[in-house]
């Protein structure tokens, strides 16, 4: 191809588009999890590519802990409006108010774990039967094991020891009422593939991903943003640093990394030589135990 601005469809992109179309064909009520983070942005763009010139035939859903970076919320709303998709917000605060979960307090508290209840309640309420997630197998060791179509029982549980065989590109969509399938179109992408896609397709991103000056403090050798929802401990001192975010969850569980990557080309370059995984560098939630993610996933987490 002559044009460099529109590179050929890559094999990974074709694979993801095929999965989107397959789900739209075989499920009644799919939904795409959309947080405004980079993986979900890639997902939304791939969904648009799968169905053009028609609109994306399913809504998107944000599981909102209430502890968000303001930049991310603004980006979320702008993007949803631009794409003309319906946004469902599942609120952790509403789950707390309804007594479904008890809020956690204290300096190290995070609503990250509470999201599972809110997510499962919303799936139940809206009767979603397929839930697209942006999870990638390169992110974490239990995700490395997960199928592209991942069955969830009526409790939202994943049974990693008894996954369905998944041969060729023939996906088994069958499930009982009340059960659902989590679908991961980006399963075979790496962090670098995501950034290359965002660069090659000139996708707009929240400013948080680019290097900027920010007040941070050091905790467990990670840089946490100073934020009203994060209580600082004695001895933790705020200081200004030039940082960016490699992953973005909510403010209580996501750390920044020191970086001078101001453009997307800088980020691609930085990512291709990174020596620490994105979750290892920035996610407080994965440090819980040797099997932190697996345990949360079994209970229905993303």
């Amino acid at each position, binding site marked *: 191809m002559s044009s460099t601005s529109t590179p050929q*469809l890559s094999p990974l992109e074709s694979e993801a588009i*095929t999965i989107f*179309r397959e789900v739209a064909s075989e499920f009644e009520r799919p939904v795409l999890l959309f947080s405004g983070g980079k993986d979900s942005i890639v997902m939304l763009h791939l969904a648009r590519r799968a169905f053009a*010139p028609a609109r994306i035939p399913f809504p998107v859903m944000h599981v909102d802990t209430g502890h968000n970076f303001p930049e991310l919320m603004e980006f979320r709303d702008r993007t949803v409006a631009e794409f003309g998709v319906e946004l469902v917000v599942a609120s952790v605060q509403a789950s707390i108010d309804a007594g479904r979960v008890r809020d956690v307090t204290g300096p190290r508290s995070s609503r990250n774990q509470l999201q599972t209840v809110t997510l499962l309640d919303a799936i139940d309420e809206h009767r979603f039967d397929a839930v697209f997630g942006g999870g990638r197998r390169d992110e974490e*060791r239990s995700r490395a094991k997960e199928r592209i179509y991942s069955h969830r029982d009526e409790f939202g549980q994943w049974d990693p020891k008894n996954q369905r065989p998944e*041969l060729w590109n023939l996906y*088994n969509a069958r499930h*009982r009422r009340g059960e659902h399938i989590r679908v991961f179109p980006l399963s075979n992408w790496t962090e670098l593939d995501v950034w290359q896609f965002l660069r090659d397709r000139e996708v707009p991103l929240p400013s948080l991903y680019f290097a900027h000056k920010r007040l941070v403090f050091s905790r467990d050798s990670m840089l946490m943003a100073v934020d009203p929802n994060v209580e600082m401990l004695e001895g933790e001192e705020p200081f200004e640093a030039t940082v960016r975010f490699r992953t973005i969850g909510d403010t209580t569980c996501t750390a920044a990394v020191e970086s001078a990557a101001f453009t997307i080309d800088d980020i691609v370059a930085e990512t291709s030589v990174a020596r620490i995984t994105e979750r290892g560098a920035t996610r407080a939630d994965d440090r819980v135990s040797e099997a932190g993610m*697996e345990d949360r996933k079994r209970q229905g987490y993303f």
Partner: protein
Amino acid sequence: MRRREPLRFATVGSVDDGKSTLIGRLLHDSKSIFEDQLEHVEAVSKKRGNDYVDLALLTDGLRAEREQGITIDVAYRYFSTPRRSFIIADCPGHIQYTRNMVTGASTVDLATVLIDARHGVVEQTRRHSLLVSLLGVPHLVIAVNKMDLVDYSQDRFDEIREQFTDFAKKLELRDVTFIPISAFRGDNVVDRSANMNWYEGTTYLNHLESVYVASDDNLIDVRFPVQYVIRPHTAEHRDYRGYAGVPAAGTLKPGDEVIVLPSGLSSTIAGIDTYDSLVAGLESVPDAGPGEAVTIRLADDLDVSRGDMICRPHNRPEVTQDLEAMLCWMDSDAPLLPRTIYTMKHTTRTVRAMVTELRYRLDINTMRRDASVTSLSLNEIGRVVMRATEPVFVDDYRLNRHTGSFILIDESTNQTVAGGMVRLTNA
């Protein structure tokens, strides 16, 4: 130039032959392990009282796997070198988890069968090699591992090569390469071994980087299973009607004469769209080949829906309700029983089907055909005759992995219970 696809490869073989260690070694010596992952593995190894870093812990990601020290399900790992990027499917070796091995091996370009140099070819070597052969994996590496434990003996390596070659005569393997390695010591994995000067071939990584796979796609027999019909219903695209999907084989171009199955009606390709071509206002992309997700428009207004197939008028798949197949049974709860009705998924088409005749069960060890059986149980492989409720559009699996493959789903449990490979000739 089309973007190069990552090489997908699987590691298979018996338990404890060192599959996970080989991958750990490959990642470690090609500097593809992230620091936090290595620290984690070192810490866990130490906690367990190991006197060495157990690289297998890099891929054994489930709690149960780490507790038992075995691989239960396939783990996917990603790495790249300046020459190529790779997707690894690290498959379990236990017979109990064969269906997970089949999951991992069904999509790969290359399979590596590990053999413990001390034990030679064992039952799981034969089982996995047979499955790799049935699954039509185009390239095979026989990695004779743990050479350090047989004093790096050339005689032992040659003996195992003969053993395997003798057994493999009964299989359909196209491209087989033998490499003596020690995954634990690192011999011939990434770096050439100083302990086996008698070996003149390449290292394992070098072989992976250079194996040629572009010719593995079937570029001749045009097969386009219609996956999804795109109808925008918007003012701007009121009359747009596109058939979304991926060519299973062949290359399609605007102007090509085509027919649609099962109706048999003919038309020509008016244009082939991608998101980029639509945004750029192009009439069509130049062509679409295997693996490319596109949307086809036809010149005539035909009734075409999901599960139909677009192909060339003079090169059609078999349109049939009756077919023969090699079946790999994967259900741990119930055996295959002839005349039970299952849901059959084949390309984008879903029908119902039953096995009308079980011709034989294949004995993994002897390769003998046992015609006396009346059912297949977990991990058994058999030759079956099937009948479907509606016609399916099939090719022999050996000519086309997409139009020759299907799965069966149990309609009461929703489990995927079998993988099938269509056999059109009496082979």
